[in-house]
């Protein structure tokens, strides 16, 4: 049987992601194109503003925006923090609701047929119209923001998780029956793991949505948050502040996305876990 072992050895010993300088080079080659384009766009923008003498109230140069961000770092950070609190809370709440409904759908096809249209309604309802309603009902604090974030979050996670829970093939269930597993054991040993890659695929989509949800909720009335900064800057026609706010919320959203990715790395510990995207 040693031959069979040898045949697999090449697979087994396939180069793992390198360490040291090799790894740095891989990272560089992975991110360099994106960084280069980013810098190029920045410089082109800067040059265009200078060359065409575009006034600051129309389109501020990146350098001006950066100066503004530095000058107003503290209030910007505070407001981003308030918004992200709501977004993260909404993402968590939405995930819990989505997982609960995924379980309900798994247990009962009838309930799935009865309730799935509601998931679609929630998904298709214009969020800009829902936000003021939620503000009326829940006040000007964090609650309506969390609610809007959660609403945006639910659908992608729900749909993906249901698919994941059902992605197990029949033979695995037969195996579990033959070895004497109870339905609960089969759920814990099989379904949970089968669903996880799908749930995370949904979470990746939802992470960005959660931040947008919180910002939109802030548009319709809130005391604090990057959404209020945007609205106020809009009233004052302060394009520089608008760009600063946009930049800050983008950075925060990307940070949240990578928190999700890090969590995914942690949870999807087996080699072929991640779904092709």
């Amino acid at each position, binding site marked *: 049987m040693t*031959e*069979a072992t040898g045949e697999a050895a090449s*697979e087994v010993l396939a180069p793992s992601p390198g360490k040291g300088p090799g790894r740095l080079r891989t990272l560089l080659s992975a991110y360099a194109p994106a960084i280069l384009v980013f810098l190029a766009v920045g410089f082109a923008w800067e040059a265009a503003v200078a060359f065409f003498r575009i006034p600051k109230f129309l389109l501020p140069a990146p350098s001006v925006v950066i100066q503004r961000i530095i000058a107003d770092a503290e209030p910007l950070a505070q407001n981003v923090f308030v918004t992200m609190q709501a977004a993260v809370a909404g993402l968590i709440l939405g995930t819990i609701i989505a997982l609960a409904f995924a379980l309900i759908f798994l247990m009962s096809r009838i309930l799935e047929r009865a309730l799935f249209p509601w998931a679609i309604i929630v998904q298709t309802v214009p969020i800009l119209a829902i936000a003021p309603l939620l503000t009326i009902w829940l006040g000007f604090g964090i609650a309506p923001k969390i609610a809007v974030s959660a609403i945006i979050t639910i659908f992608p996670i729900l749909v993906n998780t249901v698919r994941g829970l059902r992605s197990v093939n029949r033979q695995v269930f*037969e*195996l579990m029956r*033959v*070895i004497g597993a109870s339905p609960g054991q089969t759920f814990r040993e099989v379904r949970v793991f089968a669903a996880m890659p799908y749930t995370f695929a949904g979470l990746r989509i939802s992470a960005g949505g959660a931040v947008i949800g919180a910002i939109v909720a802030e548009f319709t009335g809130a005391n604090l948050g990057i959404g209020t900064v945007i609205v106020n800057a809009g009233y004052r026609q302060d394009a520089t502040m608008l760009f600063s706010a946009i930049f800050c919320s983008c950075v925060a959203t990307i940070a949240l996305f990578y928190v999700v990715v890090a969590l995914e790395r942690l949870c999807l510990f087996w*080699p072929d876990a991640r779904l092709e995207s």
Partner: protein
Amino acid sequence: MSAALAQESGGHLPAISIAGVSMVFDSPSGPVTALKGIDLAIPKNRFVSIVGRSGCGKSTLLRLICGLVRPTVGQVTVDGMTPDLYQRDRRFGFVFQEATLLPWRTALENVALPMKIQKVVQPARREERARELLKLVRLQGFEGHYPSQLSGGMRQRVSIARALSYDPEILLMDEPFGALDEFTRQEMNEELVRLWQEQNRTIVFVTHNLAEALYLSDIVVVMAPHPGRVRAVIEVDLPRPRRAAIRQGGDFIARLARLEEVISHD
């Protein structure tokens, strides 16, 4: 022929007895008769192969034996009881055509899974036993590998170790080596005979490979399709231990030709 088999088992209860079993599946295009009027007695501690064309109900027969499906008509008895009752405390070993390992479990954890599920072995002993079993199927050193890091043959060996982990008296194997190349398949055959001879076990082994069936078995059950039924039960009285070289012998080749004839006689 089943009378001869009953005699063969020395008057004792056969390990598995199938009496007047028919199996009809409902399908979108109407009922499908997968098995019709099956009578079969499988004596204890024998190696029995089931061969036959695709679709003649071999997998269905195995699934009936271990109670995964219930016969439409007739009765399956395992060690004097219904498959469900047998399954309750003794459990069948089942090796599927595909290895059917859990991708999120290492080789070691996959082998230990039934022990964990059944809570029969002390947690500390489970790992030790799983290690022994992996060694038995010659996979020491691969305990920490995930299924996707193993070759097809290695995965199938893990699944065999898993089926043996709770020491079943009856081992059902559904084309376990179907996906393997000829070379690995022959190695696995040797391995399986060794495992079977080490301990008293009844093995029911489904295969498409007639040479494999002859080489391994005490008894070869030939099935015919449409509807699935037993065409012949053939005793293989080749002496044991059988060396791999007997496959090239004249006697073996003659038997193979006869077996082929029985199967193709439609």
